[in-house]
């Protein structure tokens, strides 16, 4: 089987020298990862190239303003900042209501670069934070999938995550929002959890808690982690996979994680008091009970153990029922059963439309349509089931976690379009596993054909190098199997193939080519989606007409007008969509903004917008408003202006002030 040293090629006997082969594979993986990082960064730069380096949308402007404040005044002022230029006359405690992860990250990068004498402005750092962290996220995906299934799957999953449109949509250059760093934190936390599960080392458990802390700092979606991990622990216990590694992976995370989560001001005592965290405490108790049971089982004889079981069951059941009754009474006494409004709307998709019209009115909170799945995760949509099956052969702790992750994220993505973002890493991991396994099967059969062939070391070298690569981004490598097919002198007997259970070699190559076509076409789609669909900064609009390209910079011109032609202390009233942009770009005090924490205040503005002029003037006068900002898109056909949003103003206003009734504003069908 060993190939002798008769090669004239530059590559020595790779096939027999395992360490050299591993080293070569390692270097190749490193360069592939580097390329993946570069691709993840550059695919998100379309908006910078097509428009300019500008912050997009609405929420990023708030984050940008906070980062500016942090850069100018330092961290202590940031923690203690009370903002009196929004929600007039109430103000907003910024330090206690913002998730600081994103702003602190960008602020740290800015400070670091400036202290190294690289004078980037705060805006540049903010614009490019998201692409940088998406490169980190794809590397984290590589690490996570490597823990589950090996290096090949890792590289595939990383390449897929770098390109998947759903993630691109929330992390283009300029989309300076929480998800930009939160997805990286999510994947990295899951990677460290799986690593702790696989190695049983407290070191990784500590790192896991710290990564979880970073996730809590970054995004409200951290509740997904603190509910998914207990679910997985429960699954492992129920399927008989309890081990000391599971305990080490979970128990320190709960204690340290709860403490660290309580450190973040915006979470605070919610970390122990809201229902979102109760699952972790419940499973904490359960895992201790299970560990105790295993301990007792280990030191007692089987007969004694049975006695112990009967005793404990009879006594313990009574105690348990009492405790559970108390708990249920406590939880049921609060009207929302302890859950926050947003979490409830995830669990019961109809909740928001019945009780909280503001949450229902946000377009990102609507359920997605079927086409959006194919738009956002493209070919992964049908690779995911294959990946789930691949996770079951064989089933390990890590692969059961991946299955649970994809199942829950598919459900939640079905509730809210915005959560397709959480589905994207899971889909990439499972698809990476599926593709890598399929490639393994086909490459195995090709390789097996060639071991029986004549001692052509060039062929072997080319074959092993292509099997260690396992990457679709490098098309050159896949041409080598075709060359080896031509070089192959004779066909091996089918007997050995059937032992291996593989297909004949030409079929395998054809399958491989077909499989390769999938991600190649998908990458074409991803680049198109990134360039055309997800790169609009929404603050600058363009349109093409017969006389060329028109650029509408109306938003920024309006804010600039406000900035130059009004007093610094003038109050501007508008619908809450434009609040962040007004404070950031026009630097004027606004009445309501995108934070939407005070429904009554928003309803007041909504009532003013829906009332006749005299009544509206009264309301605005009571709020000291001097200017009212209204967006009208009728001249150019801009579809999402205030006229489009008008009925929501009516509904939200009518939710608090009963004299605003929606039927009054609709044309009756009779006239």
């Amino acid at each position, binding site marked *: 089987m060993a190939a002798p040293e008769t090669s004239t090629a530059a590559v020595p006997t790779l096939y027999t020298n395992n360490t050299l082969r591993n080293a070569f594979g390692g270097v190749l993986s490193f360069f592939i990862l580097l390329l993946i990082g570069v691709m993840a960064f550059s695919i998100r730069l379309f908006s910078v190239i097509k428009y300019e380096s500008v912050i997009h949308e609405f929420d990023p402007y708030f984050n940008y303003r906070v980062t500016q404040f942090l850069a100018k005044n330092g961290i202590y002022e940031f923690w203690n900042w009370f903002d009196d230029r929004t929600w007039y006359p109430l103000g907003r405690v910024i330090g206690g209501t913002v998730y600081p992860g994103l702003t602190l990250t960008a602020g740290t990068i800015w400070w670091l670069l400036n202290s190294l004498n690289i004078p980037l402005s705060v805006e540049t750092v903010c614009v490019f934070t998201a692409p940088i962290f998406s490169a980190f996220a794809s590397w984290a995906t590589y690490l996570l999938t490597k823990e589950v299934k090996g290096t090949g799957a890792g590289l595939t999953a990383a390449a897929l995550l770098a390109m998947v449109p759903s993630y691109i949509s929330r992390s283009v250059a300029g989309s300076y929002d929480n998800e930009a760093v939160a997805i990286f934190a999510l994947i990295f936390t899951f990677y460290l959890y799986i690593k702790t599960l696989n190695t049983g080392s407290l070191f990784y458990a500590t790192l896991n808690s710290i990564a979880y802390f970073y996730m809590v700092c970054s995004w409200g979606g951290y509740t997904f982690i603190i509910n998914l991990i207990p679910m997985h622990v429960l699954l492992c216990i129920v399927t008989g996979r309890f081990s000391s590694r599971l305990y080490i992976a979970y128990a*320190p995370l709960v204690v340290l994680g709860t403490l660290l989560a309580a450190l973040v001001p915006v979470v605070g005592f919610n970390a122990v008091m809201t229902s979102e965290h109760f699952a972790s405490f419940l499973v904490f108790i359960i895992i201790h009970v299970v560990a105790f049971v295993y301990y007792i089982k*280990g*030191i007692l004889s089987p007969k004694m153990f049975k*006695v112990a079981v009967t005793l404990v069951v009879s006594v313990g059941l009574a105690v348990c029922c009492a405790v559970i009754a108390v708990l249920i009474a406590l939880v049921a006494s609060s009207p929302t059963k302890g859950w926050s409004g947003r979490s409830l709307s995830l669990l019961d998709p109809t909740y928001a439309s019945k009780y909280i019209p503001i949450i229902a009115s946000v377009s990102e909170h609507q359920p997605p349509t079927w086409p959006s799945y194919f738009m956002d995760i493209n070919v992964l949509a049908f690779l995911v089931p294959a990946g789930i099956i691949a996770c079951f052969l064989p089933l390990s702790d890590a692969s059961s976690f991946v299955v649970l992750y994809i199942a829950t994220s598919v459900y939640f993505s079905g509730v809210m379009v915005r959560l397709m973002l959480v589905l994207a890493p899971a889909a990439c991991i499972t698809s990476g596993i599926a593709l890598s396994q399929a490639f393994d099967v086909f490459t195995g059969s090709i390789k097996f054909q060639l071991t029986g062939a004549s001692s052509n070391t060039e062929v072997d070298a080319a074959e092993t190098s292509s099997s260690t690569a396992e990457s679709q981004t490098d098309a050159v490598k896949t041409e080598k199997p075709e060359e080896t097919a031509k070089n192959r002198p004779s066909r091996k007997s089918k007997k050995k193939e059937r032992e291996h259970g593989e297909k004949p070699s030409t079929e395998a190559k054809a399958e491989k080519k077909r499989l390769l076509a999938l991600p190649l076409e998908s990458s074409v789609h991803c680049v198109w989606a990134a360039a055309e669909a997800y790169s609009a900064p929404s603050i600058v609009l363009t349109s093409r007409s017969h006389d060329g390209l028109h650029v509408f910079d109306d938003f920024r011109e309006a804010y600039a007008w406000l900035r130059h032609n009004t007093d610094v202390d003038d109050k501007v009233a508008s619908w809450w969509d434009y609040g962040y942009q007004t404070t950031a770009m026009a630097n004027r005090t606004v009445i309501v903004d995108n934070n939407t924490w005070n429904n009554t205040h928003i309803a007041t503005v909504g009532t003013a917008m829906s009332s006749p002029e005299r009544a509206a003037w009264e309301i605005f006068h009571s709020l000291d408003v001097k200017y009212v900002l209204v967006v009208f898109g009728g001249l150019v056909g801009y579809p999402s202006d205030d006229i489009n949003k008008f009925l929501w103003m009516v509904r939200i206003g009518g939710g608090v002030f009963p004299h605003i009734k929606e039927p009054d504003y609709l044309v009756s069908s009779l006239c």
Partner: protein
Amino acid sequence: MGRTSSTKEDAGALFHSLRSAYAATPVNLKIIDLYVGFAIFTALIQVVYMAMVGSFPFNSFLSGVLSCVGTAVLAGKSNFLSPLFAKDLPPERAFADFVLCNLVLHLVIMNFLG
């Protein structure tokens, strides 16, 4: 009647066998058990104190209780799981990890204590 006396006998035999099995564990692990018991006892005292005095300031209470629970978890794991311990980590590495985790835990607690 016969059933209750037999369950009593069974319970007695059970405690006896538990006690004898536990006495067979090495002294090191019993000392760690004592430490874990002490940590949990301290946590219970804090809970009782909070029930008497009221929960302000809540953050100090939380950090105190969780520090006790945390040290209990970290120390107790090696004893607790002795039947199933995967001995694939060298003990020096395990101890270094334990020290690191305790360090981070107490750093966070100091910060949260207020």
